[in-house]
């Protein structure tokens, strides 16, 4: 047993300690597992030998994932750590012995992979997502599966069939979404780091609301094979971590040679270097006026302004840039993503896996009742929206047009990156909001993605780092100090290393203290 609590270490520091023989992998895993088992935020949908039921009222009985057989290797964890070390991952991988929490929507062989949906309750895939196996092959161990908005549709994690996740900074508030369980688990110190996915902001926004680092890589950099799809042309996996170095370390494990099982995956040019920059001399930061004005909460804008002054003090040149079509990005996104989701979710039909409604009189009845029972309200809304915009007579006005807006947004960024190196915006227009505050109004919920969606449509990398605390519009967080605000930095495709370097320099200067949430 180490003198200090090993869960205080960052993932990179823990990996170093394990490699140096100062910390045992089993000890670290068990320490996190103990914390995860004591979780009061509802971050997990699966931990070894334990699995929660559906949210109250939505499940009668049976089919609990915990009853299901679990394949060894991936699921090896607490209680059998010796066995894990014998037959498990290589002890000398770069991530050897560091546990990772994985968003529910990644398929993990023999381990429940439910994408936050009732329709996949207890579903045990026969294979593992490439992103997960890249991490476990580098030595990481699977700590548990994390809660999320159903099929990654949401910005508050209130759309999970397994109940909402609470924000560790203020349990009356949401952690953001859709990777809300991943973000809250990392922020609360229940996991050293987590693997999430980002379609329109689903890594960056919860990272911002929970005061941690979240990176959405270039589209194609990380394989989508085995990620239960929301919107195929936008979905991208990435790290949620306590600091920028950890984000670089996990990204390094995720990217590399392209996955031949994913036709859209790409070879990553060069290595991801662990960031070391302390200054931003000569770095031109562009502030798009379209994403930094109306609709952004006062406290968030103030924190953003302070962050810009800090950047300047590190030597950066801050200037204004135009992204003329960015205000239309949200519209294009809420056409393209639902359209793709309506098709991606057609496979949930009660035939091969997942829920099937009982007592159907015929096939049509079985389909419609299964999907009625299995999908939550937000998923239904988006399936309906997507089906509508693709339906006969509407394609050109909606989907076709949205794809053209996407072209303009890609061009906007291209032009902007001729002028500046990186673009900076607030990650989310508000700090963490209260549970239930926006769930009655889909449109106001969708506006959470206002600053993150343009980068998703353009397929470019973007990182959110905590840049300070701000009071919510109406009140302040516990202790009156405020809630975390995220700063988003975006760069051209495959500029991850530059992005991480700049984020590293800023992180040092911000000296954001997230330990309150881990208490």
């Amino acid at each position, binding site marked *: 047993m180490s003198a200090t609590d090993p869960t205080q270490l960052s993932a990179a520091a823990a990996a170093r300690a394990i490699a140096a023989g100062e910390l045992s992998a089993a000890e670290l895993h068990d320490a996190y597992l103990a914390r995860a088992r004591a979780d009061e935020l509802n971050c997990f949908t699966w931990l070894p030998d334990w699995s929660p039921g559906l949210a109250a009222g939505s499940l009668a009985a049976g089919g609990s994932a915990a009853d299901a057989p679990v394949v060894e290797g991936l699921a090896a964890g607490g209680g059998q750590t010796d066995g894990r070390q014998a037959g498990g991952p290589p002890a000398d991988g770069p991530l050897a012995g560091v546990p990772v929490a994985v968003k529910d929507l990644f398929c993990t062989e023999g381990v429940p992979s439910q994408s936050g949906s009732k329709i996949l309750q207890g579903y045990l895939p026969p294979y593992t997502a490439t992103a997960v196996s890249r991490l476990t092959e580098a030595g990481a161990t699977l700590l548990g599966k994390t809660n999320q908005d159903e099929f990654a549709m949401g910005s508050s994690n209130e759309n999970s069939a397994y109940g909402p996740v609470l924000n560790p900074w203020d349990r009356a508030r949401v952690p953001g979404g859709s990777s809300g369980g991943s973000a809250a688990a990392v922020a609360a110190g229940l996991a050293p780091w987590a693997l999430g996915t980002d379609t329109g902001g689903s890594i960056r926004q919860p990272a911002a609301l929970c005061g941690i680092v979240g990176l959405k890589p270039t589209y194609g950099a990380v394989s989508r094979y085995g990620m239960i799809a929301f919107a195929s*042309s936008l979905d991208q996996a990435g790290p949620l971590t306590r600091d920028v170095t950890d984000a670089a370390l996990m990204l390094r494990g995720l990217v590399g040679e392209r996955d*031949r099982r994913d036709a859209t995956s790409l070879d990553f040019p060069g290595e991801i270097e662990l960031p070391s920059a302390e200054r931003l001399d000569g770095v031109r930061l562009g502030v798009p006026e379209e994403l930094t004005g109306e609709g952004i909460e006062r406290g968030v804008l103030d924190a953003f302004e302070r962050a810009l002054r800090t950047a300047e003090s590190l030597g950066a040149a801050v200037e204004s840039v135009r992204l003329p079509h960015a205000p239309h990005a949200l*519209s294009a996104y809420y056409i393209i993503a639902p359209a793709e989701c309506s098709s991606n979710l057609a496979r949930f039909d009660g035939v091969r896996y997942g829920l099937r409604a009982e007592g159907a009189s015929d*096939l049509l009845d079985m389909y419609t009742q299964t999907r009625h029972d299995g999908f939550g309200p937000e998923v*239904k809304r988006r399936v309906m929206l997507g089906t*509508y915009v693709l339906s006969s007579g509407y394609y050109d006005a909606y989907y076709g047009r949205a794809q053209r807006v*996407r072209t303009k947004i890609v061009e906007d960024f291209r032009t902007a990156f001729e002028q500046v190196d990186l673009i900076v915006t607030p990650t989310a227009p508000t700090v963490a909001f209260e549970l239930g505050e926006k769930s009655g109004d889909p449109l106001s919920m*969708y506006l959470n993605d206002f600053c993150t969606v343009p980068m998703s449509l353009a397929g470019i990398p973007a990182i959110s780092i905590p840049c300070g605390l701000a009071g919510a519009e109406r009140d302040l967080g516990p202790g009156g100090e405020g809630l975390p605000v995220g700063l988003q930095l975006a760069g051209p495709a495959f500029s991850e290393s530059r992005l991480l370097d700049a984020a590293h320099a800023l992180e040092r200067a911000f000296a954001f203290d997230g330990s309150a949430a881990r208490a």
Partner: protein
Amino acid sequence: MIDREQVLHVAGLARLRLAEEEIEPMARELSAVLEHVEWIGELDLDDVLPTSHVIEISGRLRADEPEPCLPREVALAQAPAVRDEGFLVPAVRGSGSTNGQQA
């Protein structure tokens, strides 16, 4: 903007049963979102090509080489209903058909 009739038509296409009390809110919420997204109608996009892949790549073909299949018991393991080594589904009545295979 979207009426009850349209909601039911779209729900039919999506094979999604909506309870009676879900129909009116769905019509209202879809209308609100559509009203917002229709904002892109203002843009002049006549000469703009659509983007379906942000990164212009092509090919990515697979060599015609066999890979191992799943054992049948694994393929069937998660199925809600199984009979005679296959996935059991309720009777098909008057639905469409596929690729010339009759219903």
